[in-house]
């Protein structure tokens, strides 16, 4: 069952119960107070009647009057004050009664006390009040018998307008409840529709709910969640796209060396080459294999960087010495000098192997553009490491793109130097893994400076 229906049902039953209970309580209360009123009135009437009758009897009667005389006197005195509701009984004989029923049935069992009795005779509710007095050795009982059907008539009349009022107030209450519940649940329904659209892939969808209650809060939380999801999906799509481009790049990079090797292998197999040509072909295949192996190693390190890094503190001087040891020879062959400038004591917290590889890549790149006789500078200042060359420089519009995998500025020239286009992408990955920033400053014709800021 829907939440709205449930709430309406519960509210309705509570409302009906409350209103009905109120009506019943009101009717009972009214009846009680009216009966009390009637009783009070009858009591008063009986007391007055009894008082007047006894005074008059005492005044007129004599001790030795005959029984008949006394009877007549009692009748006379009583009729002076009585009305249709009064009854007088003397020594078990009815003296005066205008009732249609025999008043003797009201005879009191306990003759000592005044009594009040409610009876129902022939469908009429009656109130019966009686008392007794003794005058000149005769025992008189004086009753007031009052019809109190007006009390019930009154209650019935009251109910006749209370019931319509209650029913209409219940109906009004129901309408208000239903309208309110519907108003409260509509935003939830909207939210559901939006959630469904988001499920179907429209991540830009947002709930438009302006209430400040719990549903409004839910909607705003929902919107925040949707925004996060949208952002994450965009990020993942972006990553997937970049990975596809990357894999496309890898595949592309493998094509040319493979094509070259295939051609040479075919020539070796099918053509009667002379010795020099045969040697050249073999050398070419070897070189392509070496190049592929280099590419494979760089790709592997690019993947490894993306896993986990193991930082430990190391002196910059030690790190620089290690870098210098590994690259000195190849730089010497090119006639390039590596100048190292650093404080001896500065300690940095990095993955030594990765930063080593980062610096090697930067110096290798620098050495490809540095003419023989010039130098490359490797400097450190606090947490900033700098590699500077005095080569050809990079045009400003290229700086943005050189960090992309497989991007090489001068393709044919790069190949001669053995550049794969992976080096700077690797540098960038290592820097990102260390939360370090890279800045490339370059002036065409003057040289390039790459600054790695390790932060902290």
């Amino acid at each position, binding site marked *: 069952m829907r939440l709205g229906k449930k709430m309406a049902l519960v509210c309705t039953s509570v409302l009906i119960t409350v209103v009905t209970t109120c009506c019943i309580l009101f009717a009972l209360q009214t009846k009680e107070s009216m009966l009390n009123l009637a009783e009070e009135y009858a009591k008063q009437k009986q007391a007055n009647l009894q008082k007047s009758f006894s005074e008059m009897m005492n005044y007129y009667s004599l001790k030795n009057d005959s029984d008949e005389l006394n009877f007549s006197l009692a009748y006379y005195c009583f009729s002076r004050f009585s009305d249709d509701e009064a009854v007088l009984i003397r020594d078990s004989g009815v003296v005066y009664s205008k009732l249609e029923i025999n008043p003797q049935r009201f005879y009191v069992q306990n003759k000592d006390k005044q009594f009040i009795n409610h009876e129902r005779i022939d469908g009429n509710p009656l109130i019966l009040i009686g008392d007794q007095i003794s005058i000149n050795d005769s025992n008189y009982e004086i009753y007031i018998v009052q019809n109190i059907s007006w009390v019930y008539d009154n209650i019935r009349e009251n109910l006749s307008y209370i019931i319509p009022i209650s029913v209409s107030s219940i109906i009004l209450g129901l309408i208000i409840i239903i309208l309110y519940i519907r108003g409260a649940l509509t935003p939830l329904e909207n939210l559901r529709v939006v959630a469904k659209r988001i499920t179907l892939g429209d991540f830009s969808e947002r709930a438009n709910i302006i209430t400040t209650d719990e549903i409004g809060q839910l909607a705003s939380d929902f919107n925040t969640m949707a925004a996060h999801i949208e952002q994450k999906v965009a990020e993942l799509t972006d990553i997937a796209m970049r990975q596809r481009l990357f894999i496309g790049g890898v595949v592309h990079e493998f094509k040319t060396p493979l094509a070259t*090797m295939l051609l040479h292998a075919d020539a070796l197999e*099918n053509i*009667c080459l002379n010795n020099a040509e045969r040697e050249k072909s073999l050398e070419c295949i070897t070189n392509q294999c070496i190049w592929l192996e280099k590419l494979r190693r760089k790709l592997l390190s690019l993947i490894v960087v993306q896993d986990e890094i193991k930082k430990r503190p190391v002196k910059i001087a030690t790190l620089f010495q290690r870098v210098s040891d590994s690259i000195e020879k190849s730089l010497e062959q090119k006639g390039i000098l590596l100048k190292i400038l650093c404080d001896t004591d500065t300690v940095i917290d990095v993955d030594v192997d990765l930063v080593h590889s980062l610096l090697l890549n930067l110096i290798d790149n620098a050495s490809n553009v540095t003419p023989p006789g010039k130098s490359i500078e490797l400097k450190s200042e606090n947490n900033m490491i700098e590699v500077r060359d005095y080569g050809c420089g990079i045009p400003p519009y290229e700086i943005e793109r050189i960090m992309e995998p497989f991007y090489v500025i001068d393709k044919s020239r790069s190949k001669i130097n053995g550049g794969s286009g992976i080096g700077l992408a690797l540098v960038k990955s290592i820097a990102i893994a260390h939360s370090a920033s890279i800045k490339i400053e370059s002036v065409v014709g003057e040289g390039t400076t790459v600054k790695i800021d390790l932060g902290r």
Partner: protein
Amino acid sequence: MAANRIFIVEDDHGISDTVALNLRYVGYEVTAFDDGSAAAASLEADHSYDLALLDIMLPGIDGFELFSYMEKYCIPVIYITAKADSASEIKGLRDGAEDYIVKPFEVITLLVRIEKVLARTGKLNRYLNVHGITIDMTNHIVTKDDVLIDLSPLEFDVLSLLARNLNRTVSRERILSEVWGPDYFGGTHTVDVRIASIRKKLGLFDLIKTIPKIGYRLEERVK
């Protein structure tokens, strides 16, 4: 009769050198460039090429731009590129290139495609000259030192196949499928018989070499 001239523009020396080597051995005359602009400039002076093999990604002028120069001098073009996407292939072929080969490729497919393009554009040499033997491809006539040699049609086809793949090993299977057709279900012995008869009729005992377990090769030293 001059050999077919082929113009290559390819920035990867590993590839252009071997392609040139292969083509020269088979009997084509090859001119290679590694730069689009230089290639375009050279056409001013000499544009009597029968076919151009163009890479697409080139320094200077790229392959698609170079195409317009080729069009100007009526040189048919085959693209040889690492760009495997169909958009580039469609663009290349729509513009009017004769063929589009994606790297890596096999030399034999390249040779066959070159041959087909030359035949289609009517630039294929009608005459093949090897060791003083002239093969007239259109009239199916073979002469040695101006003397007409009588060859059966099968012998002529085998000889011309070997001559078209000068200096290259041609497998018995390939000879069977190209001369006898793919539906022939005999042993390769029949090839050996034809080769023996060609050797005898033309006196090419040393020059048609038997390559053990593979096939035959018609050899001629490259100048």
